[in-house]
């Protein structure tokens, strides 16, 4: 797997370069107070690339299906609203029974099958599983394949720092080696020159007049050209990247950990970001959505949380902070209300991480609902982030690259039935496997700028 990752990293030099350049610039622009330079190891990049590549495999994506359909009530390894799913398939009477159950649980329960009725009793006796008539057999299999293979994430916090340092050290080692070799070369060259002069003296030959390095025309020319090229490179890249904020990781008013919510507790992204399937904006949930769960959950019992700088975070204090914003009185277990019965809530002023310029139109629904793009494809390993940072460049080149290589849901969405006859014919004839977004006009100006 590591080998695969390395291959991938070479296959994406642009990203790699982007990262290097970014570091260069942040050093020079370190006066910006909220830009915290996050030194993350290359392994992160690898893991994401692996993830991205995994999701590109053919066939239904069990993980995605699980997260979008099941994760609101189920955890693979823990009993939550519903039972833990790992290994559950093995207890089914038959495969077909499983499909039937998924598609219409109420009917199976009504029939009086024992196992599900036992579960029902175990989980309070009132909750019945939601039916999923839209899932195909392959998709159901994919979900169970995923949960059966699932391994709970290992806490990597310590690990991460260590690895990060290691890579940094490697860099320095290379630099030191290069520099020492350079010094060695210069010493050898000088020694060589000294020896030749000595030999010339000995033989009575006139030796060349020694010109100091800083007056050597050749050296001056090379240095000037080098400086010119470097400065040009730096300026151009600086200008191109002006206004971009990759790796931007601001401090938020509440230390809200996506890792705890989306990663460890497997809450579906769309549960909170409900706009992502409907609207241009994915929508940050209002605090009453948080309170749907946090009315019950008032203490944090997971692994200790740390900020990016490594400071410990009092997670319970953060929950209390939420209560303040939401207008919740934890003692009375009720909302604080004014005379007219309105909840005394104040909006949380989150710092916006992902910023697009005003002249760019981006629509979440277009990508999430119609394009079936996974959140992580642009937002990165959000389920591993305690504090969210901007994973992707959000540059136009980055957008366009994806539009060039991603297929649209050409045959699945009936919208395309009456248009692009040639593509339909070519698909039928097997001349092409899919139609990319760019072929649908996805690289034209007015798709995003109007």
């Amino acid at each position, binding site marked *: 797997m590591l080998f695969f990752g390395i291959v991938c990293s070479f296959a994406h030099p642009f990203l790699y370069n982007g990262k290097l350049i970014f570091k260069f610039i942040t050093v020079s622009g370190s006066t910006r107070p909220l830009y915290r330079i996050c030194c993350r190891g290359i392994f992160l990049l690898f893991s994401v690339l692996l993830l991205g590549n995994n999701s590109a495999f053919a066939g239904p994506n069990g993980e995605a299906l699980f997260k979008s359909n099941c994760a609101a009530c189920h955890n693979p390894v823990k009993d939550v609203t519903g039972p833990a799913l790992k290994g559950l398939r093995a207890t089914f009477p038959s495969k077909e029974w499983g499909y039937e159950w998924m598609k219409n649980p109420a009917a199976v329960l009504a029939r009086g099958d024992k196992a599900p009725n036992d579960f029902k009793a175990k989980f309070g006796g009132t909750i019945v599983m939601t039916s999923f008539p839209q899932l195909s057999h392959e998709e159901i299999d994919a979900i169970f394949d995923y949960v059966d293979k699932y391994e709970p994430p290992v806490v990597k916090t310590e690990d991460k720092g260590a690895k990060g340092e290691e890579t940094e050290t490697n860099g320095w080692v290379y630099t030191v080696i290069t520099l020492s070799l350079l010094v060695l070369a210069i010493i050898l060259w000088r020694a060589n020159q000294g020896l030749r002069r000595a030999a010339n003296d000995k033989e009575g030959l006139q030796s060349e007049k020694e010109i100091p390095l800083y007056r050597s025309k050749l050296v001056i020319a090379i240095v000037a050209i080098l400086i010119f090229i470097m400065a040009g490179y730096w300026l151009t890249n600086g*200008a191109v990247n002006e206004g971009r904020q990759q790796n931007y990781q601001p401090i938020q008013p509440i230390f809200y950990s996506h890792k705890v919510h989306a990663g460890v507790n497997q809450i579906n992204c769309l549960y909170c970001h409900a706009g992502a399937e409907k609207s241009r904006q994915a929508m940050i949930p209002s605090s009453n959505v948080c309170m749907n769960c946090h009315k019950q959950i008032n203490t944090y019992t997971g692994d200790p949380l740390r900020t990016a700088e490594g400071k410990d975070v009092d997670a319970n204090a953060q929950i209390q902070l939420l209560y303040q914003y939401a207008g919740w009185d934890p003692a009375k277990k009720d909302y604080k209300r004014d005379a007219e019965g309105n909840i005394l809530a104040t909006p949380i002023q989150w710092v916006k991480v992902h910023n697009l310029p*005003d002249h760019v139109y981006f629509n979440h629904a277009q990508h999430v609902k119609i394009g079936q793009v996974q959140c992580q494809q642009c937002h990165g390993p959000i389920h591993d982030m305690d504090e969210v940072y901007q994973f992707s460049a959000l540059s136009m080149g980055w957008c366009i690259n994806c539009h060039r290589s991603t297929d649209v849901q050409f045959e699945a969405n009936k919208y395309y039935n009456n248009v692009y006859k040639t593509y339909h014919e070519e698909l039928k004839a097997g001349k092409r496997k899919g139609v990319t977004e760019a072929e649908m006009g996805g690289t034209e100006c007015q798709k995003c700028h109007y």
Partner: protein
Amino acid sequence: MSQKQYWSDLEDLNKLNNPTEAVAQDEFKEELPFELSTGLFNATTPRRDFLKFIGFSTLAATLVASCEMPVRKAIPYAIKPEDIVPGIPNYYASTFADGGDYCAIVIKTRDGRPIKIEGNELSSVTKGGTSARVQASVLNLYDKTRLRFPLANGAEETFAAIDGLVKEGIGSKPGYLVTSTIISPTSKEVIAQFLAKYPAIKHITYDAYSYSGMLLANEACYGKRTLPTYHFEKAQTIVSLGADFLGTWVSPIEFSKGYSKKRKITAKNPTISRHYQVEAMHTITGAAADHRATCKPSELGGVAVALYEAVANGKQSSGLSKNLNELVNKAAADLNQTRGAGLVVGSSNDVNIQTVINAINDKIGANGSTINWTTTSNCKQGIDKDMVDMVAAMEAGTVGSVFFHNTNPAYDYYDSKKFVAALAKVPVTVSFADRQDETAQKCKFVIPDHNFLESWGDAEPKPNYFSLQQPGIAPLFKTRAFQESLMIWTGSTQSYHDFWKDYWMKKSGSQENFDKALQDGIVEPAGDMPNGAAPFAGNVTDAIAKVQAKQPHKGIELVVYQKIGIGHGGVWSNNPWLQEMPDPITRTVWDNYLCVSPKFAASKEINSPLTGFSEVDTKKMVVSIKTANGVTMKLPIIVVPGMHNDVVAVAVGYGRDKKVGLAAASDEVKGEGGRNAYPFVVFNGLTMEHHSDVTEITPTKDEYHVAVIQTHNSYEARPVVHEYTLEEFKKDPEALLKERGVEIAEFATVPWEEGKQGKEEKMDSTKEEGYRENGTLYPNYPYEGIKWGMSIDLNSCTGCGACVVGCMAENNVSVVGKNHALIAHEMHWIRIDRYFSGMADEPDSIQTVFQPMLCQHCDNAPCENVCPVSATNHSSEGINQMAYNRCIGTKYCANNCPYKVRHFNWMDWNGADCFADNQYEDGRRDDLNDDLTRMVLNPDVTVRSRGVTEKCTFCVQRLQEAKLISKKEGHPLKDGAAKTACQQACPTDAIVFGNVKDKESNIFKLRRQEQVERTFYVLEHIHTLPNINYLSKIRNTEEINALEEKKNDFLKYHI
């Protein structure tokens, strides 16, 4: 073939010394702001200049680079309202009612802010149509000048305190409640309760621009003091005696809808209504007319009588001018021939003239067919005499209290000085105005009413045809519904909203019906509108005698008219969108002026200099005008072909007080912002007459700049309009096809296919394809997906300007203000070009055509290949797209555009760029940059910054949204799902838009099946391959008034 010569302006007509050419050659009037005489490298100090530039750009680059990224907040709702999804618009059906101006609307709100108004297609009154004012009304919600709290004696006070003082003050002395026409049943109920509690108070209705004459005549003739419903859609012959029913008369949206139904024509069914217009000045209704003749306003009675005599007694008209006699006789013959399908309307506010018109309508069988007396119209109820009586009572000091709702007599009463003096004698004066208008300033208490977009309410434009009003936003300021104020003073404990809800719950019967009514916005009986006649009992003989007793004035007469944008004044004067909407006929913005005919301007009395005629030179002569009622005023003159030679006209709605708002405020001394024309109105003892006799008119040495925008863009005399008479069209419907065929014959086939070319063959779709392929060196792009196209019917377009304002609202089009409009910097994405034909000195010969012009989205666009940075290029859907962030502002594209539809942002109009203090300010338009006003901006459309070119995008944000919705729902795009803003605003359905690749679409059917014969593309022969086609204008007349060279000579001496 009809070779009618069109001229866009008088210079164009007189090629002598043609300044239009200068415009064409020097489209961008300014020099670049560099002080280099001969260019960079020829300069005396090229090295230093070079270094200066380098220094500047380095500095600028450094400055930009050192801009810190701002920290942006993303603040969610504390508690999210259930029905709001950020980013998804919500639509609420509601009602627009300003006095009697009524429109059923749908409010589009984004994240809780109303940002756009559309027509409600469910209404059988307005049928989804809108007007410029309805489109612009959303901007009034965010008017910075609106009062933010109630006032007592000019200082902030609480509602409770004012309520106490008012209740105490009403007392037992007689009082008046003065309102404009109220068509809301619940408001009427509230007023009835208020009057019951205070029996000494009398309710009177006062409309600034009144229809009292008609109301009183109808009362005398039919026993109903109301207006009937006019069914223009049933009228085969229409005679209008001065009524601008497509622009400003009674209910123009409703009439435009109906009228245009009878103006749609196809080769298969070549029939349209015939429209005769007699008028004193030039209105858009006159422009649409088939036959038009002019008369002085005082002669209008004579024309009505002549028409009556001709219709009723077969007496040929002979006592009028030659053209009028001809018109009256022809019209009478037509009216008699199309019995039951004729309609005569008149603008006069004289009871006798209206009685004669009623008599004509009765004779031609209009009563009960085109004029509906069963379902009448509540739109205008103002009675002038009541108002005059009230002022007299106030002056006598007998009035204890007076309340003004949506009326502003201190501005629009004919004798406002007398009114103001009388008002000072009233102890309790209350205004419900939303701002400190002229009357509110003189009132003790001002209790601002909600804006209509913040209000609950209802309307009953016709008996039993209801329309509900619901708010699109909670009240922004400390305002209170005027009904609620009355209810509180009546002693009611209920809020107006509860009262309204109870009323409608009771009326609709169940919660379900109520919800449906609120969702649809209308409550109407099913089926066709009930129609019926009323017995006519008018005393015609007496009326005719009285009309004839009035001798027409011998000299010059003045007409006081309403502009289609600003209307009667009111809040509209302070609406920058409307101020910058060009008047359809004069094509001027931001001012009022004296319209005069070319002959009059050239006459000895005026002897206007060349600039008086010129629409290029903005400097206008100022004249001093004095009328018989003793009013003197200085006004600049604008020369308008088609005006009666002895008539001058001036619009109301200008000359407002500073407190009405920045855009409205006028400067008394300089005349900036126009002057108030209401003092010219004459009270004849019963009604107000909107014309008066001029006793003196003298030129002054003053000059004044008026922004006329017609000549800002020039086609350099290329033909752009095709017009035929109905006869011509019937005889040879394919004339246009042949013409087009000849025009492009050279390229319709490839050169080596000899023998095929050069023949006079008609155009068809294969020819069109051939031309597309062979007329260019570029490869022919195969359009595989959607291909957008638009069709504009010149026969339906009335030039009303609703599309212009609709486009501004939808696309965040900047208002540039008068100063920049003067130097051709206006930004409208769609403009309505006006072309005259006929002889300039003979007003009756003038025929006028309107042509909406917007980006033609050429498939072989001249703008695209001259852009050095490819900021403008073509999409696979046939849209000529514009990437603002790529544009470097060379303006090459605008220079190369043959349609002149590209506009350059000379200034930072809206604070869109990142430099501080860069924003343009000019005084009158600056409210637009207020944080409050900016709430009207459409969040889906970029606000353009300085230095980029912009133009129509085909409302790409709407197209993308329509596609997105179809994709989400998983079905192919349906025809009609995507509508452009101009199409939706149009009250005459002149604009059809859709996917031309979809054979089920209206646009495909229209271009390829129904309207093949009338379809043409502007400047087709230059192979731009536009995606917008036009349908030729067909005029139901015998002749086209061609230009006769010799008759035009007279102007040459003056121009």
